[in-house]
């Protein structure tokens, strides 16, 4: 059994919170640059130019890329052959969030749903644990902004609606969201599982590298089909029109009940911040 100290988890999480919020990942930067090269409208180009300048400035000043430093979302893969010592893993992650959000001058955006009183330290984080074989602890972090999250939806389609139904729902969702979620967006789609699992699948798909291709060629083709359809909407950067409404579409699919076709659309903004660490 490999032992992992909670102190090391806390340190790593604290650093990740700061890095993710201040350094735009390379895959996202590449996509924005590619979009800038392809856009012909001057307003679309100007928005993309500002976003790239913003990323440079954040890197240089350590100011967060966006004032909305998100609700802290984690996907944690716990290897069967590790033992976390010195405390509780979930608490160590929350402690790392407290530390990172305080030391990085990040905005703490967690609040009571009804009284709206801020918890003051960015916690509790939303943590999804998964048990996997091996002796590693993998922590993937995403600060999830509220603007894009608010545009997300879960729906239970009838099985007969199939791919066409899925496609229609996604297109209408992105069209309806329009400029609200800070386009160009990344669309994470969860298909299958149960009501709650589809949403988790969608969220998890957003953790993928933007430039990767799905390992299943059939799903990869559907991702491409949707990406083209969504870009044909012409919403463009910040809703000012243009070729780039989305930077990417990611699909995560699992079997579901005979009677159901759960579909979750998790909208993510261009500030597609994500970080991971393996301990």
């Amino acid at each position: 059994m490999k032992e992992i100290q909670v102190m090391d988890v806390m340190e790593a999480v604290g650093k990740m919170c700061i890095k993710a919020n201040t350094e735009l990942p390379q895959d996202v930067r590449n996509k924005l640059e590619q979009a800038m090269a392809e856009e012909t409208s001057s307003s679309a180009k100007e928005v993309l130019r500002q976003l790239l300048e913003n990323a440079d400035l954040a890197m240089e000043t350590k100011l967060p890329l966006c004032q909305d430093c998100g609700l802290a979302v984690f996907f944690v893969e716990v290897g069967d052959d590790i033992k976390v010592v010195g405390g509780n893993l979930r608490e160590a992650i929350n402690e790392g969030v407290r530390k990172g959000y305080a030391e990085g001058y990040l905005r703490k955006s967690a609040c009571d749903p009804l009284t709206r009183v801020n918890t003051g330290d960015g916690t509790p984080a939303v943590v999804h644990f998964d048990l996997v074989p091996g002796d590693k602890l993998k922590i993937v972090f995403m600060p999830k902004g509220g603007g894009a999250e608010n545009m997300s939806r879960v729906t239970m389609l009838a099985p007969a609606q199939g791919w066409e139904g899925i496609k229609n729902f996604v297109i209408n969702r992105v069209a309806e969201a329009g400029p609200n979620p800070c386009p160009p967006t990344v669309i994470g789609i969860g298909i299958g599982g149960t009501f709650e699992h589809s949403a988790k699948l969608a969220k998890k798909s957003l953790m993928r590298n933007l430039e990767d291709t799905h390992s299943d060629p059939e799903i990869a083709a559907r991702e491409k089909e949707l990406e083209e359809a969504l870009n044909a909407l012409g919403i463009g950067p910040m809703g000012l029109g243009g070729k780039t409404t989305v930077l990417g579409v990611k699909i995560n699919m699992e079997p579901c009940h005979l009677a159901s076709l759960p579909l979750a659309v998790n909208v993510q903004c261009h500030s597609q911040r994500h970080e991971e660490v393996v301990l």
Partner: protein
Amino acid sequence: MAEYTLTTPLTDVDTIQLKAGDVVFLNGIIYSARDAAHKKLFELLDSGKELPFDLEGSAIYYVGPSPAPPGRPIGSAGPTTSYRMDSFAPRLHSLGMKASIGKGKRSDEVKAAMKEFKGVYFGATGGAGALLSNSIVESTVIAFDELGPEAVRAMKVKDFPLLVINDCHGGELYVKPKLDTAE
């Protein structure tokens, strides 16, 4: 599309000339207020109390900045999504607010209020909070400190870069999604 440099407080003369798509560099004092602050402002209005700032000619920025690190007046400070303030904006326009600053679509009621009271809706680039903070030279909390990032701040801005999204003549800059080509 024209370019203007304007200073708050804004007047009818300032806003009537603006058309959707125009670029405006805004100067002077603007006030930050988002969800929780709007609720508190309305409680004050409903109980006949004075607001923490003068609405006449004002520009309200829908923003909840990140904390100011040492040596800077403010942290990242980009716009939040405006529709959540749609239920508040018409009354504020009727009481003198000239401009709101945010991102995303407004309701028909807000657009009608802008027509009636010569108001304007400016868009700032969402997710460019670090860059936009460069145009904010001073920031002071003037009310509801307990709201943290949602407190009302008086922000002094220098050439704050904005786009006219909705003007007071019914013009709108946002494009309509082309649903027919997508499906």
